[in-house]
């Protein structure tokens, strides 16, 4: 289990290896499934054509909130390990923003864990996106579909 909040880019392959090693350490021979999610900046977002995004956060809270989420995912889905990494600061088109990974005994748990982490992250981790193009920028509005996605996990048994 690990989480990072960082300005610099991350390496998907390194994070995957780190997750797999952690799962093997925590529950030797019991990982049958690993699911990863990587989020990237698209050229064309809510406001149309953009150059990239700036991510503001609440430094004292972000890391705590992310650690708590990772812990919750491991407990709720009986995972062998889970992890989340989120970038902050200025991020250009096609760059990576976020990575989550879940390792578990079976595929459904690993898939559910990774979906859960992404849905809840969009609800409870203090990060805010501003899209920029040239010298103008605009805050991204929270989506109702993200509320619905998170609510799904709160009402599920």
């Amino acid at each position, binding site marked *: 289990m690990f989480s990072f909040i960082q300005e610099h880019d991350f390496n998907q392959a390194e994070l995957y290896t780190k997750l797999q090693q952690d799962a093997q350490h925590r529950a030797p021979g019991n990982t049958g499934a690993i699911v990863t999610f990587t*989020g990237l900046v698209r050229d064309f977002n809510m406001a149309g054509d953009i150059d990239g995004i700036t*991510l*503001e*956060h*609440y430094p*004292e*809270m972000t890391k*705590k*909130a992310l650690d708590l989420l990772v812990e919750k995912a491991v407990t709720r889905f009986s995972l062998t390990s889970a992890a989340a990494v*989120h970038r902050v600061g200025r991020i250009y088109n096609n760059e990576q*923003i*976020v990575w989550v990974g879940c390792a578990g005994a079976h595929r459904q748990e690993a898939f559910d864990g990774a979906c859960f982490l*992404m849905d809840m*992250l*969009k*609800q*409870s*981790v*203090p*990060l*805010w*996106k*501003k899209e920029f193009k040239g010298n103008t920028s605009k*805050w*991204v*509005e*929270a989506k109702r579909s*993200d509320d619905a996605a998170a609510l799904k996990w709160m009402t599920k048994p």
Partner: protein
Amino acid sequence: MQITVKTFAQTRELSKTPSLHLEIEEGETVANVTSRLKNMDSNWALALEGSVLTARNQQLCDSKTVLGANDELAYFPPVTGG
């Protein structure tokens, strides 16, 4: 006793106050502090209108939460990470 108020994103820009210290009474809730801030000036009134989330000591909280000495109370819009 004193608390620290922090703001982020649109709430920070609208309030024009990233951070301030505030004197509060024993037993004051988040709702009390919110209405005092709203009455401070039109920037705060605008900043705290609509859906604004609150966190006490870096944990999401609701308006009924009671504040204590040296607490950090943060106001911010719905999050948009991921």
